[in-house]
């Protein structure tokens, strides 16, 4: 019963259907990648889970409890998003203090420790932080909360490479120490590919697939060679996409490879798989 269950969720704006009868599940104790193109509906779904906006249809439950307007789930879920929702006039240390009052499971000492590691000035007001440091502040809060479900919506926006690496290592360290579920919505697929265990791919308001990363990568591959040879090989197979360069061609295929002397086979990476799946969906 420990899961976030999304059942038949739709969200209709005036002339746009942002989400179209979504069903999916986020199980306890796993790291999920919520992937999708710009405008796919990731943030809309996250905002509905976090009770920031209302679904037009459907229901979301968190550990069996309704997620809408329910204080019983207050200590179950936290959402870190790119939207600036904090009191911009307060100092970072005061925002930490207030978070510790709002949440029973916020580790104030850990927050200051993480802030120090990121060189986040806790005496600065939120509005005077750079975009990158505003993200770091939000990450710090999320990493210092010991809750069953933590959602990150574009967590590394504006972060340099060093800070991104630090965030990923802190996330993994937290994950090892606590039983929690992380949901990471991001465009930097290759960066999180080594972190995430499951993928939920959302495209044009619909769930394209939900599967483990291991299973996805085991059941897709690249085949390359002369265009005519590749075309011959691809007959009867589920082709996700193709790239052509002169007389050579690479095809991305779903399934298991069949040996061929004239062709080269290689594993597909998660980003390429995502690109080809969403291109196919758009076509």
């Amino acid at each position, binding site marked *: 019963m420990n899961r976030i269950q999304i059942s038949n969720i739709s969200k209709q704006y005036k002339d746009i259907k942002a989400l179209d009868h979504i069903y999916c599940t986020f199980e306890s104790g796993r790291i999920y990648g919520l992937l999708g193109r710009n405008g796919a509906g990731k*943030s809309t779904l996250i*905002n509905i889970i*976090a*009770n*920031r*906006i*209302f679904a037009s249809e459907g229901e979301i439950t968190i550990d069996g409890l309704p997620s809408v*307007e*329910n*204080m019983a*789930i*207050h200590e179950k*879920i*936290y*959402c870190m998003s790119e*939207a*600036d*929702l*904090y*009191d*911009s*006039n*307060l100092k970072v240390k005061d925002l930490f203090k*207030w*978070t510790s*009052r*709002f*949440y029973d499971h916020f580790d104030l000492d850990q927050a200051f420790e993480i802030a120090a590691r990121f060189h986040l000035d806790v005496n600065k007001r939120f509005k005077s932080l750079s975009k990158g440091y505003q993200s770091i502040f939000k990450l710090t809060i999320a990493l210092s909360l010991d809750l069953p479900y933590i959602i990150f919506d574009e967590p590394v926006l504006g972060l340099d490479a060093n800070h991104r690496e630090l965030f990923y290592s802190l996330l993994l360290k937290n994950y090892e120490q606590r039983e929690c579920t992380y949901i990471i919505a991001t465009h930097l697929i290759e960066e999180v590919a080594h972190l995430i265990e499951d993928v939920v791919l959302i495209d044009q308001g619909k769930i394209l697939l939900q599967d483990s990363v291991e299973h996805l990568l085991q059941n897709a591959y690249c085949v390359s060679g002369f265009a005519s040879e590749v075309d011959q090989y691809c007959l009867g197979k589920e082709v996700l996409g193709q790239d052509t360069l002169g007389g050579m061609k690479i095809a991305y295929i779903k399934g298991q490879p069949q040996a061929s002397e004239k062709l080269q086979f290689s594993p597909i990476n998660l980003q390429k798989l995502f690109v080809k799946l969403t291109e196919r969906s758009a076509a």
Partner: protein
Amino acid sequence: MKKLQALIRYEFETTFKYIFLFYAICYSVIALVYLLILILQGHFEDAGTSCLDMNSLVFLSIISSVGFTEDFRMHIQNGFTRKYIFIGTTSLFAAMALTMSLIDTLVANLMQYLTGNYHSVFTSLYGNAQPWILSWLWLFVLYLCACCLCYFITLVINRIGGRLFLIISLGGALFISLSLSVLFRLVLPAAMIENIIRILEMLFGFMTNGGIQVFYPILLFSSLSTIIMLSNYHLIKRMEIKR
């Protein structure tokens, strides 16, 4: 309950400092003006002030609308439900109205004692014969009503957008003023108009026998506050975070 207490404490701690600042500025300006008069004229005979509570009314109206967006977003970010946000905000309004009405009533009494010619909004309307506790209560419900009304306007603007709100407000005001003019001048009989005026006077505490009954306006503002608060709750429970 503990979460609600934390939310209410946040509202109080982040807002009350502005009340102290407001009074500091307000009374500093008055002191400065008195000083200038003393320097220029050598006496206070021509100096005077009244209705300082109007400043508080304006201040409360502004503060109850300005902080809405940021507070709402902060509370939603920290997982509070809209019901809790409404309770926290309404509690803040009640506390601000209670505090400021008490301060203003005590200041009014002190100024009247010291100068003999100070008038608050209440004494300007109802004279000095009423007990100060009634004056305080009247001012409290007036302030509360103003806070709730300005918050309501902010919520409506947030829901429908500023432009549409402006059009509806201007159009509505024009329609109401024209309709009332036509009704009163051309449609309603004179006896009915007199009755309407008499009822309105009674609602504001002015009885037909020439007496004053302050409980009626207190009841009026309390009822208005309740109705507006219920409307606020209805609006806020469907409020969404805008991107």
